[in-house]
């Protein structure tokens, strides 16, 4: 049986809304205008429900994607797993270790790449020195750290810049260095918040391949939160869709597509057919079992668009093409993308 590496049970997080949080660090300026110590520091103005009974299981060797609109709770979820935010209810486990009670053990099992790429780096140290600093904090031996840092800089294409000061890096390179830092410890679980944000297309593709390789050949669990539907569709084994702090769907991208919509579209591209013949063909298509809608499109080519449901049999369409001896140059099929599924689910 595949091992569960990340598990959350009824995870709840509420953020208090106080004048302190509203003031966002400028509360001394509010002093006296909106109230005194009690108003600014103590009094709560309500709560924002960031997570509401979120239960998920992620397995070893899986690439798992968490999709959701802005403010859905994705970052809160990841930060709870990283022990950076304390939950208000429920439980979360990383390789069996409780994120609240055993944070030390949790952090020996996971590393994460979070939001802003510049955080935690010394701007006046070289890339190599920055990684050496973190290797020391991770408690890695000098010899192993040196080897690992060289491997990672090579892997991310930063070897030539190893001795450059951090402040000379571009955004994309800083992102790559952040990834190097996360991979330093070689943990079995890796969490990524928007992993390819800021990377150029080649680096992003290489990085996606790297994630797949880490999951499939090294058995690592990869958990990503992303807005990039194409990315989720192309690399994730399973995805969960989160909205307003609740998981509204969790399955493989293929199953999600089937659940949300069994609709399939066929586009027949024709060469030189008369309008009279096309009208008859459209009428007959509409009479076929499982056909929901038929339309014609005329631009540089003539196209028949057939929208079908699960009862439609492709043989019926082939017979009809043969019956009218239609000069079909190509048939295109179309299924709803993960993006469309996401929008449908979120708007429900």
């Amino acid at each position, binding site marked *: 049986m595949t091992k569960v590496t990340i598990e959350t049970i009824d995870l709840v*997080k509420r*953020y*208090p809304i106080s004048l*302190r*949080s509203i003031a*966002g*660090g*400028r*509360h*001394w300026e509010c002093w006296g205008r909106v109230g005194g110590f009690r108003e600014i520091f103590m009094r709560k103005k309500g709560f924002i429900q*960031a997570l509401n009974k979120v239960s998920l299981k992620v397995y070893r060797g899986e690439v798992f994607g968490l999709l959701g609109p802005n403010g859905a709770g994705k970052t*809160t979820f990841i*930060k709870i797993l*990283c*022990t*950076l*935010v*304390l939950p208000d209810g429920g439980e979360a486990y990383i390789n069996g270790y409780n994120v609240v009670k055993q*944070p*030390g053990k949790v*952090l*020996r099992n996971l*590393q*994460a790449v*979070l*939001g802003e790429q510049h*955080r*935690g*780096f010394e701007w006046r140290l070289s890339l190599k020195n920055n990684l050496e600093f*973190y290797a020391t*904090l*991770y*408690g890695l031996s000098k010899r192993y750290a040196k080897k690992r840092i060289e491997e990672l800089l090579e892997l991310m294409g930063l070897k030539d810049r190893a001795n450059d000061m951090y402040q000379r890096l571009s955004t994309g390179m800083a992102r790559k260095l952040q990834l190097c*830092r996360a991979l330093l410890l070689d943990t079995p679980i890796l969490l990524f918040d928007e992993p390819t944000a800021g990377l150029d297309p080649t680096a992003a593709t290489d990085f996606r391949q790297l994630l797949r390789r880490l999951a499939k050949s090294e058995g690592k669990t990869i958990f990503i939160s992303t807005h990039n539907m194409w990315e989720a569709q192309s690399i994730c084994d399973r995805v969960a869709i989160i909205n307003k702090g609740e998981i509204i769907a969790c399955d493989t991208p293929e199953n999600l597509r089937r659940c949300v919509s069994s609709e399939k579209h066929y586009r027949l591209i024709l060469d030189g057919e008369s309008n009279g013949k096309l009208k008859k063909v459209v009428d007959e298509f509409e009479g076929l079992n499982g056909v929901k809608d038929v339309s014609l499109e005329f631009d540089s080519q003539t196209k028949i668009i057939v929208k079908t449901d699960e009862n439609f049999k492709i043989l019926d369409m082939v017979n009809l093409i043969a019956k009218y001896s239609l000069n079909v140059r190509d048939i295109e099929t179309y299924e709803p993308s993960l993006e469309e599924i996401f929008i449908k689910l979120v708007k429900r």
Partner: protein
Amino acid sequence: MITQLITIAIGILSWSINAMYRNRPVPEYDTDYISFLVVGLVIGNLVMPISQALERHLNPWSLEAIIMTGIPVPIFVVGRIAWPYIFSVITFIPQIAVGILLFGVKLRINWFSTFLSFIISATILLGLSMISTGFRLVTKSTDPMTWTINVLQQLLAGISFPVQFLDSFIPGISMISWFLPQTWVYHLWRLSMLKAASIFDPATQLDFLKGAIFGVLLLPIGYKTFKWSLDRVRKDGTLGWF
């Protein structure tokens, strides 16, 4: 704005009092004023890097990444403060040498007491730094604790004149100075370096004991405050805010 005005006012007041004190002997430490002043300023250089180091290395900008390494934060704090403090002590020596060679500073050092002063002041400063960092984590701006202590230190901790001199303006005000932890940092170093005070001498033994009590109290209070603040911001979800 208000805090800036207070800081300026206290600064002016402090240097005015200092100017009035100039060229007097300093019987409290059996020395002359130039020795008293140079040693005080050098100790000031010893104190400042500690809070600066903590502010630089333990802020919301880097804290998330540091916590993610799994290193216990108090160990990180001690590690980050230890080197600047040792470095400050090392630079203390050439600074004193300049004082001796150029300004004729006269030192009477008791090495064991100096070592003890080093330990006591490190404990006091570590505690204060942790309290200050804890406040800053929660409030996300300059904490009132550090500001109050720094401002009062300028006037009351005896950096550039003996605290007893304050009594000639408002009788009894020097009492407040002895409640400031930094006063003990300056006092113990000066006793050890200017007066060759021994901890076995009953006249100064109590001073070392009082300084040590500050250290013993401030270190656990600092640790608890810092830990409370860290848990608080993790609960509020504001750890990475700045």
